[in-house]
């Protein structure tokens, strides 16, 4: 920063044209307003030197505060939406708000991992209990809720829980940084906020879709499976999954998905295990179709192929599937439909819907090129089956 104040330049100019600034600002003599300007410049310099960080912190805090307020609005809107929907479909006569608030505060403690042997079953059990617990609560809150609606309401409530959790965490760090006046706490918070906000907005969109029962971007896997199994005989396998045996290019395709149209991801791990065991491991190939997170720069609805179990979640299902695959040496192929996190949980976009046919073509190629006629293949459409029947 130049310490030569503007006043010098001004005074040079003014002396050239032979005027006195006291005529103008009315201060006593030439020195008056120059001195004040100079003092101001120096003062400004010192303020920036000593309080610069604090000012910067103020600005950051303001930024975080704004985001926190927005988060609060998103959270409150989600809660209201959940309560309204539960009231509407559950036809409850009592005030359900306190009970919903209790649910929003639920937490899940993951199993102790010091000795990780057998942790998958423990985690699986805890997730099952949690799932059942939320379902039971929905039944208490909305007694008239059944089947499809029950699943949708469970999903709605879970989205509201996620929003509540995000808000609380951000608030925690905000208050902490206020208390400690630490630039580094608020800096960390400010750095991750854009991603957190994007996630919160995605959950908010998901909540709306769940409450109405609309298919979301993640439902593209089940949508593809449904397209393949349409008009065939369908039976239930394990909890919440369905399978249909479909003749496919001279092979037998066992098409599987979570049961729709309620919001439900099923338990693909257990279902695939069951089907592999039923066929005594005589499976020529397993193909998993799922929505996959796209990187920035990739297009929504692009289809890409790869190897491995394409399934999200806590990893329990992937673990179970991989165990069986290794046991019987079954090759696994994955097809993913690219979308970002916002698209994955908000109502399905046209590009994603249209990607279903492209993905089916890929499945056809895979099966024709890599299996023999008469083989049996499993095709699993992974994802939330909300708004997709079969």
């Amino acid at each position, binding site marked *: 920063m130049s310490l030569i104040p503007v006043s010098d330049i*001004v005074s040079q*100019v*003014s002396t*050239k*044209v032979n*005027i006195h*600034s006291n*005529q*103008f600002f009315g201060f006593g003599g030439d020195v008056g307003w120059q001195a004040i300007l100079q003092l101001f410049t120096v003062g400004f310099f010192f303020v920036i030197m000593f309080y610069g960080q604090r000012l910067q912190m103020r600005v950051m805090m*303001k930024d975080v505060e*704004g985001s926190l*307020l*927005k988060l609060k*609005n998103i959270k409150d809107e989600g809660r209201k939406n959940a309560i309204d929907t539960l009231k509407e479909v559950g036809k409850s006569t009592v005030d359900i708000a306190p009970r919903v608030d209790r649910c929003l505060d639920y937490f899940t403690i993951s199993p102790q991992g010091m000795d990780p042997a057998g942790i998958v079953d423990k985690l699986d059990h805890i997730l099952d209990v949690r799932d059942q617990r939320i379902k039971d609560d929905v039944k208490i809150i909305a007694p008239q809720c059944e089947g499809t609606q029950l699943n949708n309401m469970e999903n709605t409530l879970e989205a509201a829980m996620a929003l509540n959790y995000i808000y609380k965490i951000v608030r925690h760090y905000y208050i902490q940084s206020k208390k400690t006046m630490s630039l580094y706490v608020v800096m960390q918070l400010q750095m991750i906020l854009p991603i957190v906000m994007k996630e919160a907005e995605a959950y908010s969109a998901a909540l709306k879709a769940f409450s*109405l*029962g*609309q*298919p979301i971007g993640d439902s593209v896997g089940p*949508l593809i499976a*449904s397209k393949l199994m*349409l008009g065939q005989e369908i039976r239930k396998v394990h909890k919440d999954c369905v399978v249909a045996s479909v003749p496919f290019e001279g092979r037998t395709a066992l098409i599987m998905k979570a049961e*729709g*149209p309620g919001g439900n991801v099923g338990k693909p791990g257990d279902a695939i295990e069951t089907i592999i065991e039923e066929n005594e491991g005589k499976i020529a190939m397993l193909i998993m179709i799922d929505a996959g997170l796209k990187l*920035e*720069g990739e297009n929504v609805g692009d289809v890409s192929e790869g190897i491995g179990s394409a399934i999200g979640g806590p990893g329990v299902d992937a673990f179970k599937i991989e165990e069986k695959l290794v046991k019987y040496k079954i090759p696994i192929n994955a097809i993913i439909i690219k979308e970002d996190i916002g698209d994955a949980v908000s*109502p*399905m*976009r*046209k590009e*994603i*819907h249209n990607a279903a046919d492209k993905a089916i073509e890929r499945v056809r190629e895979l099966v024709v090129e890599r299996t023999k006629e008469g083989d049996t293949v499993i095709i699993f459409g992974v994802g939330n089956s909300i*708004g*997709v*029947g*079969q």
Partner: protein
Amino acid sequence: MTQKQTTTANKISTYLILIVLIAMSLSIVALISAVYAYTQNMIPPAGFLAIIGIFGIVMSIVSLHQNSQRSAAMKIEVPKVMTYIECKNCGTKISREFQRGDFVFKELDVCPKCPEHKQMITGVYKEIKEKEKIYEV
């Protein structure tokens, strides 16, 4: 086809308004001083003050405009989710707004054209009209 969603984010922060107001009033004072200096026949200071005043006013208007544009971008336009219905027999396709209870591959009433065949929902999705900003790299 689209419904406007209003969020609290679309009002400009009071903080900014305060700063802009201060900057603007200072600029106006500078302009007035410029006029005054001009009437006193002090041309160079008048020029300086006029430049400072105009610059200040332009800057505050620009920052206000930028901020309002940013908050306008935050107003999310939510496209309606549509249900697409098809008759497999005659191929008639219709679409309507999504209703609670719709789901893909749900069988509906018989087709008005061919009484033996039922219509079916073949798609439930939204169409985002505006193009996303593409960064060509």
